[in-house]
């Protein structure tokens, strides 16, 4: 990977030298690169497999995961002098790799020490009517009878759930205080993200499903949360802790 980015830089370097020759007078933004953030769904650190892979949660129950989706909004990186951001809301779906890759373009070269984003959708977007793209209500992440986005969804099954097909479902949302399920996440960076001129820097994050079951969450008692409220808030506090840098 290091080698790859070296190659990219080399080509960019050549382009930079040759560019003035081929295009007189055109301005090239100098000292800029870009950042690609990739989020990998995992369970206890291992790549997440759906449906027939068995996992054990903190409470000690065996579980299977059937669906895992969440919104990421306003991803931003800050260096000492500047902040770059991608303000769009993205729907990350564990079953769609492409959905988990974000690009922030035109990033001033520098050393970025903080990475922040919101899991979920901000309250203004929740009340602004029919949105498009990943926010299109046709994506199935929207509540109809009590309007608002489902910020994150986790569905699966476990023998301990005395429900139809032993299913558990967490559809977590709500934008009106005190039941706002959007969570601001500050990812701890072990070392700064360095952006070089003309280079793409890749940041890989893990989103760990195991974090949803923190606090010894007992699936035999709590296995369906589909409205805003206290329980949704508890789970939102949990998923706020699911991210780490690889």
């Amino acid at each position, binding site marked *: 990977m290091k080698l790859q980015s070296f190659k990219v830089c080399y080509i960019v370097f050549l382009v930079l030298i040759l560019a003035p020759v081929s295009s007189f007078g055109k301005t090239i933004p100098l000292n800029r690169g870009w950042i690609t953030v990739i989020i990998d769904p995992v369970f206890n650190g291992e790549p997440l497999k759906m449906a027939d892979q068995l996992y054990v949660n903190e409470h000690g129950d065996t579980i299977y995961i059937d669906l895992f989706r969440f919104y990421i909004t306003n991803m931003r990186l800050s260096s000492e002098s500047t902040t770059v951001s991608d303000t769009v809301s993205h729907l990350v779906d564990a079953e769609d790799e492409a959905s988990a890759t974000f690009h922030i373009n035109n990033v001033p070269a520098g050393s970025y020490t903080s990475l922040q984003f919101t899991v979920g959708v901000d309250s203004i977007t929740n009340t*602004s*009517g029919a949105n498009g793209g990943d926010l299109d*209500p*046709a994506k199935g992440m*929207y509540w109809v009878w009590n309007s608002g986005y489902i910020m994150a969804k986790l569905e699966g099954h476990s023998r301990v759930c005395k429900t139809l097909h032993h299913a558990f479902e967490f559809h977590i949302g709500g934008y009106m205080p005190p039941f706002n399920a959007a969570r601001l996440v500050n990812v701890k960076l072990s070392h700064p993200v360095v952006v070089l001129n003309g280079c793409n820097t890749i940041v890989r994050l893990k989103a760990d499903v195991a974090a949803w079951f923190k606090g010894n969450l007992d699936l035999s008692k709590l296995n369906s949360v589909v409205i805003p409220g206290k329980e949704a808030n508890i789970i939102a506090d949990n998923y706020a802790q699911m991210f780490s840098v690889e």
Partner: protein
Amino acid sequence: MRIRTLKYLLPLLAGMFILVLSLGSDKKEEEVQFVRPKGWPKPVYDLSKNKPTINGFKLGRKLFFDPILSRDGSTSCASCHTQWSAFTHVDHGLSHGINGLKGKRNSLTLFNLAWNKSFMWDGGINNLEVQPLGPITNPVEMDNTLENVVKKLDTAKGYRARFFLAFGDSGITGQRVLKAIAQFTVMFESFNSKYDKYVREEPGGEMTEQELHGLKLFRKNCASCHKEPLFTNYAFENVGLAVDTELKDYGRMAITHDPDDSLKFKVPSLRNVAMSYPYLHDGRFRTIRQVLDHYTDGIIQSPTLAKEFRKPMILTDQDKTDLIEFLKTLSDKDFLFDIRFRDWRD
């Protein structure tokens, strides 16, 4: 040379002028110009983000009348919202939809929707654009999904071209379906009743003595909730109705989970109220007089009862008759018979 040009130009100009005029008059019935009547508050709905255009309005109208929105193609928006009753489900206590399944609530009237702060009797829906998701996905209304509606429209005859005309792109998305319906329904504006003309001191606004007495009683007893000019303050109130033991509908509380909201329902606008029977959230009364009899004699005390009803409301039989005569002046024929809102099958 100059004269010669003029000779050709003049008839040409005249011809164009006539053409433009005739086109203009042709378009009259298809004008879509949202109006904020003088003295009315600013609309809540942000029209700048979804400004109605002729083509968007027509697409919305087609969708409103098209049963394609329901799973089995049986039910359209218009099935439960008919124009001459101010777009409510007239004569149906509890509106029914697909397979004749009954819903839990009486249909609401649809007009002046741009001023609504929230939608439905419990205010659970927060924006006009996302409101159609309610009926589309309700198992007892249209029982469909938006994903499915988009797929069906994509293959249905004529829709892609209409989406192109409305949005400059033939791609059909959930967002565009919803925006188009909103462009149609936001144009349901009612502000030309006899009462409006009376307030604006226009011809046709001459009120009788009886109606004026009704207006006076109205301003004293009713206007705190049914506030002019929209005839609602958009609040949620408990008007002391007995809970229906079968429906067990506690209204606003289902949305906020706040016990203080128990049994509260949205204050409905009283414009066109003479046309929109039956009344109240579960359609329990067939006449306005029954509603008034409830207000004077039927109030059931409970912790969340509106303060206006904590002590008895006193209205004589004659008062009630006069109030009803006044409420009839809120019927707006311009709106109820506006041909733009008919099913044009175009």
